[in-house]
């Protein structure tokens, strides 16, 4: 059985927290440059140009691209033939978050309780999801998830009779209501099927798909992704909600088997600062 020290997980989380916030990926900046070519609204073009300038400014000044350095969302895929040693996995992840956010001069945005609302001043705890997978690998994925867009996310238990049109309409309405508040051009993660919490988790996992805009391997799901993207980009919401052709950069849909009477649909909205990375240990 392979041993992995959780200290290595702490180090990986610390490094990714700083890196994703200071360095928007080259792929994302390329996608924004392509969006600039498609955008017809003069104000929309101006906004996308400044978003691209901002990515450069963040690298040059070693500042976070966005002041909302996010909730730390960590997906840990642990091989079932791995023995984690050296401490508690969740504590190790949270220590990585604390160190990364402090040493990277990132913003502390987490309150310890939703009712009392006192800041933890560490940005911990992270939202952690663990998955036991075959083999002896360990893959840690990190996302800095902004709340402006997270607040525009939603979930509905549709009826099977609502079908494709029901799915498209629900997402279109959510995007129009989100408007500039979600910082478009957005990336949309969609979870379809399973039950209430599985749909929500699928939507979040969909946001982690790389590269951005890669289609779902299942043809009928990829077809739905294209239809959603076209529908959303026809809303006119545009960059920062001020009108334009480019409202979303990509739509990723993940699906799961579902009860004969259910069609759960979760939409997880991400902003134009789509910040995530993963490492294999």
């Amino acid at each position, binding site marked *: 059985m392979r041993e992995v020290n959780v200290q290595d997980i702490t180090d990986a989380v610390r490094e990714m927290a700083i890196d994703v916030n200071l360095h928007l990926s080259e792929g994302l900046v390329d996608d924004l440059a392509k969006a600039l070519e498609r955008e017809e609204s003069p104000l929309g073009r101006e906004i996308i140009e400044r978003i691209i300038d901002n990515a450069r400014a963040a690298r040059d*000044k070693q500042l976070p691209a966005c002041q909302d350095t996010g909730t730390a969302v960590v997906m840990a895929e642990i091989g079932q033939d791995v023995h984690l040693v050296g401490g508690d996995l969740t504590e190790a992840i949270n220590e990585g978050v604390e160190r990364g956010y402090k040493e990277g001069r990132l913003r502390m945005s987490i309150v310890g309780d939703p009712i009392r609302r006192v800041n933890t001043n560490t940005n911990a705890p992270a939202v952690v999801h663990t998955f036991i997978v075959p083999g002896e690998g360990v893959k840690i994925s990190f996302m800095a998830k902004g709340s402006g867009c997270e607040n525009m996310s939603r979930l509905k238990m549709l009826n099977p009779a609502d079908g494709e049109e029901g799915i498209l309409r629900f997402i279109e309405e959510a995007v129009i209501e989100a408007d500039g508040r979600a910082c478009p051009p957005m990336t949309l993660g969609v979870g379809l099927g399973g039950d209430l919490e599985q749909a929500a988790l699928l939507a979040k996992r969909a946001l982690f798909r790389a590269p951005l805009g890669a289609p779902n391997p299942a043809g009928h799901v990829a077809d739905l992704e294209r239809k959603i993207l076209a529908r959303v980009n026809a809303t006119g919401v545009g960059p920062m909600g001020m009108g334009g052709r480019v409202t979303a950069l990509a739509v990723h849909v993940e699906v799961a088997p579902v009860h004969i009477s259910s069609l759960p649909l979760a939409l997880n909205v991400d902003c134009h600062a789509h910040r995530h990375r993963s490492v294999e240990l």
Partner: protein
Amino acid sequence: MTPRTTKLTTPLKESDLKTLHTGDMILLSGEVYTARDAGHERMVRLIHEGRKPPFDPKGAVIYYVGPTPPHPGMPVGSCGPTTSSRMDAYLDVVLSTGIKATVGKGCRSPEAYDAMRKHGAVYLAAIGGAGALLSGHVTGAEVVAWEDLGTEALRRLTIKDFPVIVAYDLAGNDIFGEGRRKWARR
């Protein structure tokens, strides 16, 4: 083609506001006061108690922002706008003090637009997620009150040519609704 660009300095005068049209780019200089969720809760509580905000509100500008910590020698870190609509519930009370503009991102509620018309105030949108770029337009920062709120403390930021877009003008034009309708494919 770039939008019409004008320069403006705080505190804002009524004559300044009358010249603004939705969609204009403004390069704003002077001072703005930062407040977001927790700061608004405290500011509105003060006003309800018959006291004043801890700064001169006449013609003042509120910036909805919670910056990241600065590097040594810099006034602030990354400092882009947060979602304005979360502060809509407080806006009527805030504008009743003489504050003339708020800076944030995203569309607002009908009640917020009513409050702006009632008090003769405008709404300016900064580019969300452009915090590193906007940081370069902040030349000074000091905590005025509520230091215990950390990033949500009330700060006075000194700004120079800080770029914002007029999102709601005195004539009641709303850039979000109008922009979307103009560019929607039916």
